[in-house]
Structures are given as C-alpha cells and as structure tokens.
C-alpha cells in the first residue's frame, strides 16, 4: 500500500517490540492472539483505537527483539501506517516486508487528527500541512507496492 489515510494514535519514543507484543504470546500461529494482546504491557487503552489508525511514534520505534509478530499484530489490528522520525532497522524491514508502511518523518502528533500519506510522491499530510518523508529505496517501494515480500516473490516464481 503506497498511500492511505487514518486517524493519529500518538506514542512515545523507544517503543520496543516486547511492548508491542510480549514474548509470552508469541508461540502460536493464531494471529488474532497477537491482536488481542497488542500494546498490552504499554497501555491497554491503545488497542481499541488501532483500527484505521496511523501510529505516530517518537524516535527508534520497534527497537529490541526481531519478532515480526510485532509488525503483524499492528497490521492485523487495522493500523494503516506507522510514522516515526527513525525506526529500529529490523522492525522497519519487517513492516515493509509484510506490507505495512513504515514512514520516516518527524511530525507533531495530535491524537485523532487526520493523517494522509503518499509514499510514491514522498509526503505525509497532517492538519493541512505537508511534510516530506525520507524516501524508500526503489526495492522497498516495489515490495510495498506488491503488498509485501510474499507477494513480491510469488509474482517472480
């Protein structure tokens, strides 16, 4: 997905993947389990707000464990995109690989505000103001446009 729209959910900086989905919930193939417990250890009021949300986080979002379940949990919970000034690199790759836009951009977050983004054109729009984003590499754009790395490779085999 290269463009989209959603309501802002504001989060702090250095949110680690243990906080997105705790280690004790990882051993299952049932993705709904991850949705059920997303952000449980950070703040239980976040999960109900995630459907159709654009998460706007502080720097270093997704640090820590490489668990891809963190990115999957967000996507399955209905998150449209995650915006942060910087991401932990494994989370960044994971998100793009499963078709969840991870957007490097520094914006001020107001809870609930409308946020639009267009990755092909390279901008994020919040409260009528446009911000440029750090562009994705051509490869990452192709993967995201395909809807993730699984589809990307399916189309090639």
């Amino acid at each position, binding site marked *: 997905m290269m463009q989209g729209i959603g309501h802002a959910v504001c989060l702090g900086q*250095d949110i*680690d993947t*243990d*906080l997105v989905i*705790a*280690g*004790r919930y*990882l*051993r*299952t*193939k049932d993705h709904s389990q991850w949705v059920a417990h997303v952000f449980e*250890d950070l703040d239980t009021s976040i999960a109900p707000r995630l459907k159709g949300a654009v998460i706007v986080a502080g*720097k*270093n979002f997704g*640090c*820590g*464990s*490489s*668990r*891809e*379940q963190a*990115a999957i949990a967000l996507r399955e919970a209905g998150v449209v995109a995650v915006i942060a000034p*910087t991401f*932990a*690199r*494994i*989370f960044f*790759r*994971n998100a793009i*690989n*499963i078709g969840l836009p991870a957007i490097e951009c520094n914006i001020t977050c107001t809870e609930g505000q409308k946020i639009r983004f267009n990755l092909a054109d390279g901008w994020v729009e919040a409260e009528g103001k446009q911000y440029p984003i750090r562009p994705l*590499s051509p*490869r990452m754009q192709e993967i995201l446009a395909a809807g*993730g*790395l*699984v589809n990307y*490779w*399916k189309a090639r*085999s």
Partner: protein
Amino acid sequence: MSTLSERILGAPHGNYVDRKVDRAYVCDGTGMLTLETWKRMGAARLSDASRLHVFFDHIVPANNSTTATLQHELREFACNSSLTLSDIGGGICHQVMSEGIVLPGEVVVGADSHSCTSGAFGAFSTGVGATDMAAIWLTGETWFRVPDSIAIHLSGSLRGGAEAKDLALSYVNRLWMDGGTYCALEFIGEGVKTLQMDERLTLCNMAVETGAKTGMFYADDITVQYLAAKGQTVRPQVPETCTYIRNLELDLGDIVPVVAVPHRVDTIKPVQDLAGLPLDQVFVGTCTNGRYSDLVRFAKIVKGRKVAVRTIIVPASRQVLSEAVRTGILADLVDAGCTIGTPGCGPCLGAHMGVLGEGEVCLSTANRNFRNRMGVGGEIYLSSVATAAASSLTGEITEPEVA
C-alpha cells in the same frame, strides 16, 4: 579506503547491494514464522540447505504442548529438508555460531536481533525478521544498505572489578538506545588487543542495543588462534584508514562496574550507588554472558560458599556445559546452591525456567531489561558476571571483589 562493512559488502556506505548470504539461521521462535512465510511464497524451492541452520534454543525443552507441537513441525521440516539442525540442549544460536562456524569476511544473517554477536570475528553479521529470512531460504540472497560506521576507539586495559560487560553497558550508555541506528560499530585501537574472543562477543552482542546493524572487530591473532582451536584456519584482516561518521573514545582503565537499571539498557549507575538493593533472583547466562569463561569467573567467586538468593545459571551451549562438567566447575556451582538450566536462552525472554513474579527484582547478565520482559511486573537490573556473583552471595546488589 574502506570500513570493514564496505569491504565485506563490496560497496561504499549508503549504497544498496544484493549479497549472497554465507550463513543464515533461525531459532525455534522465528523459525516457525519463517517456515510458514516460506510456504506462502509458494516455494518448494530452497537455496543451498547446507548454509541454513535451525536452532532450538529459545523455549527448550518445550514448556507446554502448544509450543511442542509448533516445534515439532519445524524440527520435522529441518530434518526432511537437510537444514543444519541444532536441537534442544545444543545452545543459543549466536553462541553455537561462534564456536567455529562463522568466519572472518563472511556475510551472516540470523532471524534474531542479537545476530550482531558474530561480528566479533570480522564478519558482517546482522539480524532480520522472518519474512526476510524466508526470502533468503528461497534465494540464498538478501539486500543490504551498506551502513555508515561508528568507531569505538579502545585504549588501555580493564582493571579492578570491571569486565567487558561493564564496558558494553558503558558504550551503550554513551551512544544511547538509538545512537547506532542503521550504523555498524567498529571496535578499534590498542585496547582491542587486551580483549579475548569471549569479551569481544559480549561487546558485539550489545551493539543492537544502540540500534546498530552490527558490531565488529577486525580479525587479528587472537581471532586466528581462537578459530584454530576450533579447527578453522583463517587470516587476520588489516584495518585501513577510513572515515567514520562518529568517533567514540573509551579508556578501558576508566571503566567501573555498572548496572543498567529498569527499564532501559542505556541507563546505568555505578554498582556502588546501588549497593544493598535487595534481590529475589540472580540469573547468569544468555548470548551476552553465558560462556565458559563467564561460568569460570562466577564459580571462582562462589566456590566453597553458599548463595543467599535463588541463582539460576544457564550455560550458553552444550560445549560450555560440557567443559564446565569436565573441569569440575559445574560441581562448584551446584554445591554453592545454584540451579542449572538447559543450555539455551533460559528465562531471558520471559517464557519459562525462571520468569519473575510481580514486583520481583532480578540481577541478570543478559542484554535487555525492557519492562515485563522476564515476567509481568518484574524488574531487571543488568550487570557483569563478577557483580552477579558477588550479589548472589549477599542477596543484594554488591560490588565485585577486586581480584
């Protein structure tokens, strides 16, 4: 003139490259998702299986039948597809990879964030998630952005009660939790020569705690000798003059025993300042500090005495355990009242074998003290082995004795 990453990846920093992967590995946690994703890629195709490793280390032996069933599927696949399998009790993936598998100059990718550990051999070794790994299973390749590099210049040598772990916590504190984001850390300078392979592995292991892609040492005589003892013949790498985006200077002689306090790994205090803090548990092990040399140092301090708090020791690998059995230090640990776990991750990720109860405080030699990581409501302090040993004898945070 190139950094070590540029040399191994074959392009200047900032470039995107496709690289064949020399070694790729998953563990029981990420392996299941990798397998599922690889199947969804529609792929009956597997790249060179001899380069693909599967480790059972995170929750071993399985803690319940759900885990056991999931593990069974991965195990069966690994056997049927001739992947290199290290089953339960073999040890933590990063440790086993460092026991003569990873070689200088190789490109190594693990589906675990601490895959940066093997950079200690002068390899480019980094972590990815399950979907990236599934694509590597399929093609044997992946893409990288050649990183900028940060130099950590080391001078002098460690003294007093300070260990490599104190140095690791100190550099993470200097860079903060995101100071190394997207970068590679290169440990260089005269001080490097004073650090043995086990100490270098501890330092590279924690690179990801600064957000770094990897931590690296140039292979030198110490590397060559270590690998020779594991049956591998390699050559040293000669550093070139090159440009770093940041330089950090650390005099090893200035490093003092420190503890990372809950819930951030980059927030440290001298052990001295926390002395007397009561503990419910001491945990020694993990890919940071569960090596044979770590167990030796711990045993030396507790030998002939009794621990005053529940103390869990988990050897990082079967080789570590075996050596500890042969040399008798395992008996010293057991006689001192320590509990020994199956080689692997133990309670580090909060799944089993020593998780904390609400409000309990643990001093751990691991690399992460994130909120709730070892159990909901538990508090994790991170320290060196020497600090853990001294503290296990008193039941409270205690400064290590100076040898």
